[in-house]
Structure formats: structure tokens, C-alpha cells
């Protein structure tokens, strides 16, 4: 099952973009414009979609001709690429993920996919699931940096790690009986803590881009 890596599923969807000469701007540009307005991190719509580790949306115009001796080829259409690492063991898990998407963020899905051929809308969840699965291609290989844990488990683990590290730093060297009492109290409090929202556990040091959105660590350019 190349789409699966433990409990994480690597979803790849290629949706052909409408080719309508009368559309202004063209449908692919309308998708690009919409995607450019979407926030990343905890305010991303996909942070509200249950079971999403990370995802990205890309508009693919065409294959790039690199010159002789390559032969010049073209795609039949422009495509919207949707890649998502999600919690789903097996095909049934995928369907429930897609249904969750349709339920959580239908307005965003419609705003993007309404520019694609044959898109039925997210209001009809069954038709939406059928459509997405029809556009799916096998992932074969993907980078899963989540240690075979679900989104919930990962968030809980990060929360616990941070809280315990803070606890240790504040309490090291404390007398044993007092430490034990404080730890029991700490553990009870931690267990009662609500799950952190997706996208809230990362580094806060990233600088903002021109739109004021955090983009995390800067990359160095073309040499990596």
C-alpha cells in the first residue's frame, strides 16, 4: 500500500482545470488568486479539517520544455494538485477524511475546485468523495515526518513534551516529597488541558511575508 505509511496516508489528487477561453481571468489564475489569500498555520482552513497533518495546493500549468535533445510535450490540460498527509488507515479512512473536508470547509473547497472539470460541489458529500477519488493518483512515495502518529496524538505529544520540559526546568533539585506532590498536581492539570489547536505548536520565530503571514524558517535558495 504505497499510499500508506503506518497510520498516515499520502493523498495525491490531480484535478483538471477548466479551459474556458471566455473566462477572465482564466480559471487557473482564479485558483492562484484564491490560494494566495489563504493563510497558513493555525488559521489555515486545513487546520480546521480533521485529520490533516499537512497539505499543499499547487497549480500545474504544463510540463516545461527544457530544449533539445528533449522532445517537446504538453499536458492535455492545466491541473490543480492537492497533496495531503492525513490520518487514515486504508480506503475507508480516506473516504471519511474526504467527507470531513466537505463538512468542515465546503466554502473553501468550492472556491477552489469550482474551477475544475466535473466538480460536483461539496454540498453533496457522496458526489464530492466520488469526484475526489476519481481524480486520485497513486502517491508511491512521500515524506511523512510524523512518526506514525495521528494528528491528535502528535498534538498531545507536543503539548506534553513542552509542559514536562517546563516542569522539569522549574522543579529540578526540589526535595522529593514536595516534587512528587507537585508532579501529581501537574499531571492532573495537564490531563485536563484541552488539546491544542492544529498549527499552534510550532516555532513562533518565523518572519512575516508581504501579507503578514508567518512562513517559518527561511530557505537559502537554489543550492540546497
Amino acid at each position, binding site marked *: 500500500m504505497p499510499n500508506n505509511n503506518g497510520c498516515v496516508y499520502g493523498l495525491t489528487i490531480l484535478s483538471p482545470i477548466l479551459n474556458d477561453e471566455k473566462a477572465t481571468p482564466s480559471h487557473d489564475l482564479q485558483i492562484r488568486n484564491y490560494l494566495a489569500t489563504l493563510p497558513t498555520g493555525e488559521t489555515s482552513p486545513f487546520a480546521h479539517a480533521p485529520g490533516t497533518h499537512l497539505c499543499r495546493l499547487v497549480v500545474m500549468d504544463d510540463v516545461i520544455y527544457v530544449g533539445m535533445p528533449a522532445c517537446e510535450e504538453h499536458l492535455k490540460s492545466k491541473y490543480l494538485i492537492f497533496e495531503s498527509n492525513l490520518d487514515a488507515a486504508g480506503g475507508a479512512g480516506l473516504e471519511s477524511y474526504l467527507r470531513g473536508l466537505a463538512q468542515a470547509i465546503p466554502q473553501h473547497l468550492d472556491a477552489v475546485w469550482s474551477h475544475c472539470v466535473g466538480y460536483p460541489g461539496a454540498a453533496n458529500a457522496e458526489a464530492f468523495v466520488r469526484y475526489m477519488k476519481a481524480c486520485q493518483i497513486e502517491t508511491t512515495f512521500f515524506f511523512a515526518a510524523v512518526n506514525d502518529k495521528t494528528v491528535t496524538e502528535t498534538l498531545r505529544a507536543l503539548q506534553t513534551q513542552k509542559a514536562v*520540559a517546563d516542569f522539569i526546568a522549574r522543579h529540578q533539585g526540589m526535595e522529593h516529597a514536595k516534587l512528587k506532590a507537585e508532579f501529581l498536581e501537574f499531571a492532573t492539570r495537564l490531563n485536563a488541558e484541552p488539546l491544542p489547536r492544529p498549527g499552534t505548536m510550532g516555532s513562533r520565530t518565523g518572519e512575516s511575508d508581504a501579507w503578514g503571514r508567518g512562513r517559518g*524558517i527561511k530557505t537559502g*535558495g537554489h*543550492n*540546497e
Partner: protein
Amino acid sequence: MPGAEAEESRRVAIMSKLNETDIQGFVLRGYNLTYARYFYLHFEDAARARKLIARLLPEITTGQRWDGGKPRSTVNIAFTHRGLAAFELPIATLISFPVEFQQGMKKRAAILGDTGLNAPEHWDELWREGRVHAWLGIQGLTSSALDTASTEMLALIEETRGAVVLDSQDAASQVISGKATTKEHFGYTDGFGNPDYLGVERSTQPGQGKLMPDGSWAPLATGELLLGYADEAGELPVAPIPHILASNGTFMAYRKLHQNLASFRAYLEEHGRQYGGGKEKLAAKFIGRWRDGTPLELSPDAENQAIVQDPQRSTNFTYGADGDGTRCPVGAHIRRVHPRDTFGFNGKLIDRRRVTRRGLPYGKFADENEPVSDSDDRGIIFMALNANLSRQFEFVQQQWIEYGNDARLGNDKDMLLGNHGGHGKFVVQGDGSQTNPPYVCTALPNFVELRGGDYFFIPSITALGMLAMGLVDPR
């Protein structure tokens, strides 16, 4: 066949011996000369600058072996991208340099984590202004040898009116009872284990090249240090055109690192009292070596000069048997910047992230009992040489100094070099025993602050000649 790969590497090394007369000596060798003075030059006129280089050329120290004895002084030179532009090189050549070098270090601040206290606004005026065109590095066996060589070079500059001297920086090894040491201001013994490269003849010791599957160490590909040769991926490093301008040259990241000695001592004193292993062991855990240089991995409980003095042992260790960091913490400085086998795959993942370090302390050394202040002018001039600044120096700085994910340490930064700004933590892994307990250091100040620097190109002797004669032609 054990050691076969290492044997093959040695064979190739002999076959591809480099032309040491064409490579600046500073690139191939740490001179071990006690005194240094770095002049920062600004070129006002291309013709006069060319004349200066022509006059300097015979003075430049090459990588030739010093079989006839050590010289009393050395001279080397390197250029910023602005400096090369001042020679009025063809635009086709200037734009063929790697982007990070064209930009210079100041514009790479966000990538390098040079923000907050380390941001360019806090740098020395020299480096904020961006007028530095060249670094002229002079080293001397004695301070009078340094003065003599400096005077000669300044006379050449004056005579040709080839450059304006913007500023200079003195640096020197700590001399204890007449003997130069490799101690830096925090009291650590520095300067272990620069990498070996194919074709570079130097006295070599295990632990300084790349780790082979059989556990032996072999030289890194020449192209990790020098332009014009294959690197560890079998590719030629990104280099300017024409090829002959680039070949036998390299890039240097120059960083003036101010050391807050008072903060360091106070922090170590306070936490050394709380940490069960004691102050000296805590100091060792920060770095991965006891302050006398003994690697924690080989001697976790005490300093051991027998190891430090033995080239077969002082850099010859791996971390595979210490996965949880109870001997050498996973976040210790030497384990971060040279993880050896820590990431598995026989260390293959790190072979393209190595840099050659040069550098000397500056400012007055202070005895353990001498009162010090963070505002005292002292630190280290750190110079990293590599074929690809972006892939090597910048990667190490961004990912291994200012971040911890590769070491599974989340956002933790290097204890001593990290830009902590009063936050962050450093975890000393322990085994639960009385003298090696786990410990967490928090509320970390910046023990080291960046005061400026830039990216430089260190050309070959041939390339310097081309600059001097105005013969750089990208066609």
C-alpha cells in the same frame, strides 16, 4: 576486505595531488602562528586596485609545504562581491557567482538567524556600512614579525594608492608562560579536527574526514573545499565563470563573535552549583569536550591529557553507542556541528555539511579570578571556509546552531552560540547516577553575539593574477 574503501580514497588522494603553489596557504593550512591582523580594504579605483594586487601577488603565502621551516609571517587576501565589482569585472562574471555570495552576509540575516541581538543593526559600524571590499589577513610568529609584515603591506597600499584601509582587527592566541595555546575566552581548548580533503597533504588523524562503512575515516572530496573539483555528490560546486577564475579558490564566511564572558561565568557558576556533576562537567556538557579538550565521548568522567595529546584518539570517536546522550549530550556543540554517525547511514548525511574553520580570539584574556564584564572587547574571529556557503556554512548555522530538529531537539539552539535572547533550553541527558544526573538549563542569555562580518571569495594565485592584469574574461 576491511578498509578497502579507505585504501581506495588514499590511492585517489595520491593521484590527485593539488597544485599547492596555486592555492592560498590560508585555505589549505591552519598556520598556527600566534598573532594576526586583518585589514579591511576599500577600492576606489579599478586601475590602482589592480596595481596593488600585482604588487601584493609575490607576497601572498601559498599552500606549499614549509619544508625549509616556518615563515615569520604570512599574507593572504579575499574579496567581497562588491570588492570584485570594484575591479570592474565583466558583468557576466559578476552575476555568475552564487546568490548568497552576491548578497553578502548582512542580507542573509534572516536565513542565518542573525536577528534580535545578532541583527545587523547591532553590528560594528564597519560591517553595517557595507564598504568592505577585501580582507587582507596577515599572521606573524611574533608580534614584531606581525608589525613588520603589516608595515610592508601598508607601504604597498600607500605607494600604489590601491586601496583605502577602512579598519583593522588584531587577534592572537593566548600565550601562557611563553607558549601559544588554542584556548578561547570561555576557557575551552579549541581547534580540533578540521576535515581532511583529497589531495591536501597535511598531518592527518582519524576523525577528521568522513566516516566509512568499515568505521575508518577517509578524506572528503576536494570539491567540498575548493572550486573546480568534484564534491561529495560527484558534482562541481556552483562557481563563477570563467572556470579558471574559480578553480583552486574557495568561499569564506567571516564572523566577529563577541563573547559575554561575565554572563558565561555567572551562568556556569550558578548552574554548576545545582548540577550534580559539578561545574567543570557542566561546562564540558555544553561543548562535548572538557575544557582541556578531552572528548566527553571518550572520557565522560574526567579530563585526560593522554587522550588530548594522542592524535589517534583526540578526534577519533562516534556517537552510535551514545544514542541517548548520557556521555556527550545530543545538543552539545561538537555533536551538533559535526554529528559524525548520529543521524545513521554511517554519517553519509553530514559529508556535504562540513566546513574548515580558521580563527583566532581577540581581546584580552582574563584569568578565572580576574573580574570581567560583558562589555569588555573580547571574542573570536570565526572564519569558515567551504566551496558552497549556502549548502555548508549556512546550513550548519541555520539548522544545527539555531535549530534542533535534526538532533530531535525541537527548537533548541546551540547552548553557547545560539541566539537565545533569554529564552530556550539546553538539556543535559543523564543516567540517573549521582555524578551524571539529567539537567535542564533554561533562560539562556546570548553567551555569544555577532558583531559583523561578510562573505568573501579567496581566489587562487592564478585568479589573483587575472584580477591584477584585468584579464577576467567569461567567454
